[in-house]
């Protein structure tokens, strides 16, 4: 009894896996290509002693490090194909993991070349650094290195917490400058990328690809989309203390092809909010003329947008996200939402076609004020014949659990809430540390990774 829905899901999941594997292979091939540029130049023949070996290593680390930085730019460009396959959050997790290795490679590039040249010249490192600095475009290259260090250091978790998001983001934008000012010395001082070589064409192509992707998907497409749909605030409705639903109007909003569970990055054009874009989930699937977001004032920025006036112009970047029905792989559905995490859950369920008995939904709040949108979930057409449980009450102190004191006392576990868990897709959305505990329990119960879907609200 092969269920047709189930079969389509499996095929789609396989296709996504293949695409994801191909993307991973593409990344590593680009690293190999960076080394191949040097090999093709005849780099191996330049190695004859320790000095030339260090020089060669310096060239290769520079090529690979820069390649990784360009890969990071591509990952941060929010390319729809990447978002659809692995999700932007996975892409950004990979982006973050590449940051430090890329910096270390670039630092090694500078250090190895300086030492290698110094050994060949029979001079010392200081003299060599001074003479390198005087080379063409080298001052710019050192500037790029300085900027890169600033960008990576401010992104190390411990340091990043000291900055506001805006300050950090502004520093992070310097990475574009860092990569660009490093280009002249690569082309003028680098033998591998010499004028007229295939290597030079490929390398410039990489730069065009990375910066082109950013220009198109982070600037051009959002600008065009915002102009096309002419989105404005229709009204702001308080649904709970500190929680508002923002109703939007616009042209052809259904043409955004938003899937339930997705989010977009919104910018509200008022004097105090225009400079900050917010990722906010749709709390309902958009119609042709309207859309709805629900947001909790977690930061000063969110508090300001809860006060936007009707008529305020809004620009959109997105929709993004893989917290959708399209990414399901299993026949059953298990859903856990807490607090503001209800927003993508609600629109995901709204957009899903569910059979009776297919889904089990657990709504979690520490007190009744957090039960906003819960009644809407109950009235969704897709929820007919499907179970909805609620779990109210605070978590016990000093115990790592996502459940309430009361539920724990009654012996509730993830297995008792979702008896068919291993045969289900688990969708989790809520505060980060809470969601991690749900996932921990799910993994402990033996749920495979591809059946775990989580939407994270963090930057």
């Amino acid at each position, binding site marked *: 009894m092969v269920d047709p829905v189930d079969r389509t899901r499996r095929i789609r999941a396989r296709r996504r*896996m293949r695409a*994801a*594997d*191909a993307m*991973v*292979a*593409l*990344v*590593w*091939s680009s*690293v*190999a*290509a960076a*080394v*191949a*540029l*040097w*090999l*093709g*130049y*005849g*780099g*191996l*023949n330049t190695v004859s002693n320790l000095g030339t070996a260090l020089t060669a290593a310096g060239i290769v680390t520079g090529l690979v490090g820069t390649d990784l930085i360009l890969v990071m730019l591509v990952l941060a460009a929010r390319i729809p194909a990447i978002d659809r396959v692995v999700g932007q959050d996975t892409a950004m997790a990979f982006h973050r993991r590449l940051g430090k290795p890329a910096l270390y490679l670039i630092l090694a590039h500078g250090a190895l070349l300086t030492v290698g*040249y110094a050994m*060949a*010249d029979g001079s010392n490192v200081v003299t060599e650094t001074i003479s390198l600095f005087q*080379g*063409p475009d080298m001052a710019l290259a050192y500037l790029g290195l300085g900027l890169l260090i600033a960008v990576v250091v401010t992104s190390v978790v411990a340091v990043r917490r000291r900055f506001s998001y805006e300050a950090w983001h502004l520093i992070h934008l310097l990475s574009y400058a860092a990569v660009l000012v490093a280009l002249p010395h690569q*082309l*003028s*001082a*680098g*033998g591998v990328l*010499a*004028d*007229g*070589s295939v290597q030079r064409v490929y390398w410039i192509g990489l730069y065009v690809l990375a910066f082109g992707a950013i220009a198109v998907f982070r600037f051009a497409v959002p600008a065009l989309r915002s102009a096309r749909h002419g989105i404005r605030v229709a009204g702001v409705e308080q649904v709970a203390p500190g929680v508002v639903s923002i109703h939007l109007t616009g042209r052809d909003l259904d043409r955004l092809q938003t899937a339930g569970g997705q989010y977009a990055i919104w910018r509200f054009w008022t004097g105090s909010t225009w400079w900050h874009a917010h990722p906010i989930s749709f709390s309902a699937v958009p119609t042709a003329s309207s859309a709805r977001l629900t947001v909790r004032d977690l930061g000063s920025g969110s508090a300001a947008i809860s006060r936007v006036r009707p008529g305020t112009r809004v620009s959109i970047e997105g929709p993004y996200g893989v917290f959708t029905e399209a990414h399901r792989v299993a026949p059953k559905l298990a859903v856990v939402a807490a607090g503001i995490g209800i927003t993508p859950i609600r629109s995901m369920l709204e957009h899903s076609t569910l059979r009776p008995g297919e889904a089990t939904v657990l709504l979690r709040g520490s007190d009744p004020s957090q039960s906003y949108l819960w009644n809407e979930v109950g009235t969704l057409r897709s929820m007919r014949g499907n179970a909805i449980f609620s779990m109210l009450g605070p978590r016990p102190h000093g115990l790592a659990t996502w459940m309430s004191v009361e539920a724990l006392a009654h012996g509730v576990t993830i297995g008792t809430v979702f008896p068919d868990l291993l045969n289900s897709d688990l969708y989790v959305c809520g505060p980060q540390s809470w969601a991690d505990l749900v996932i921990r329990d799910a993994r402990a119960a033996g749920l495979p990774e591809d059946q775990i879907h989580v939407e994270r609200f963090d930057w």
Partner: protein
Amino acid sequence: MRARALALSILSSAAVLTVGWQLGTQGQTSTAPDAAAPTTADSVTSDPTATATSRGGSTPSAAATPAPAPTATNGSVSAAAAASDGASGTFTGTSVQTRFGAVQVQVTVANGSITDVTALQLTDKDQRSVSISNRAAPVLRQEVLAAQSANVQGVSGATYTSDAYLSSLQSALDQAGL
């Protein structure tokens, strides 16, 4: 990383690296930049002096080995070195290897005096070296023509190029008996 992604990465990376390596080794032997190659079978017989670092095509053949290569280029060899005093002809100096590439000069002598110095090859490892070479070569030529010997001051900021240039020149002058 999943096994398939890993396998795919290894395979494609290996393929890319192999292609690069092949191009690198090919470029070392097969480029025959000398336009006026006298023999037809030149490309088949891999003569050891024709090892060239091919790139850009801005400079002609670069002898990667510092082996003395006073071989005939373009047929105008030091054939006319007859009389002891009034030597005449064209003499090619040895190729001198530096960190920034090989340097080789050719000197034209008429009746025992240096009438011209041509750089067959100059330091060209990267753009920086090329620009340094282009700056230094005319200065060195002028100095040599004025001094009528290799005993001239080098060009500052182009120490490698100068030293190699003058040492290649000296070997050419030795051949000429000057």
